[in-house]
């Protein structure tokens, strides 16, 4: 990648991060184009490079963002309350990552994947969390295969 593209992509990443942090939403290509005062086509090209670099998960058949991990643009089974907002995450790993990404504590409300019991996890600072005694996190796909079918992972 040419240096200018690296710098531009960093600016685009920062615009995405600012929208998440300050507005509580994952922005569209059009929204990033407005915030950076650039053409939509330039932002879409940057998004495409980020998809190829696995910076985020795109929506199906699209260059728009589905998940700028740990944040997901659509409702899921993992609801996180943090920084006076609610957020969605695509999996338990990401749900545990929402409060750290925001630099705050948070609460995860989900359901046990085994018995469907409601499950609440309190996420503290510095990689700490408290959960019901027998709660665990299962990862079903080996790490080397995470991106073979990221929508299933």
């Amino acid at each position, binding site marked *: 990648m040419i240096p200018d593209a690296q710098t531009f992509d960093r600016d685009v990443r920062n615009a995405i991060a600012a929208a998440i942090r300050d507005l509580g939403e994952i922005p569209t290509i059009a929204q990033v184009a407005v915030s950076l005062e650039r053409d939509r086509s330039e932002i879409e090209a940057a998004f495409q490079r980020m998809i190829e670099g696995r910076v985020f998960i795109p929506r199906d058949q699209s260059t728009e963002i589905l998940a700028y*991990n740990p944040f997901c643009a659509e409702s899921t089974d993992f609801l996180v309350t943090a920084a006076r907002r609610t957020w969605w995450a695509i999996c338990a790993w990401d*749900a545990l990552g929402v409060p750290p990404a925001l630099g705050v504590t948070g609460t995860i409300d989900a359901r046990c994947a085994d018995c469907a019991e409601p499950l609440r*996890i309190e996420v503290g600072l510095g990689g700490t969390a408290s959960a019901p005694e027998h709660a665990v*996190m299962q990862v*079903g796909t080996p*790490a080397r295969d995470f991106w073979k079918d990221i929508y299933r992972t």
Partner: protein
Amino acid sequence: MNLPGADVLSIDQAARLAHAWYARKLVLDWRRHTPDEAAALFAELGLDPEFWRLH
């Protein structure tokens, strides 16, 4: 019930993993972990090296 072939992490391990993985995601100079950095993190957390190898 454990999923066949799944790895099972304690909530403590999972929280530490998530913190290490995502705490810098929204900062100015975020970058992906290199494979070596990821492998070192997984080892530090005591995760199964075969399940968590990236290649």
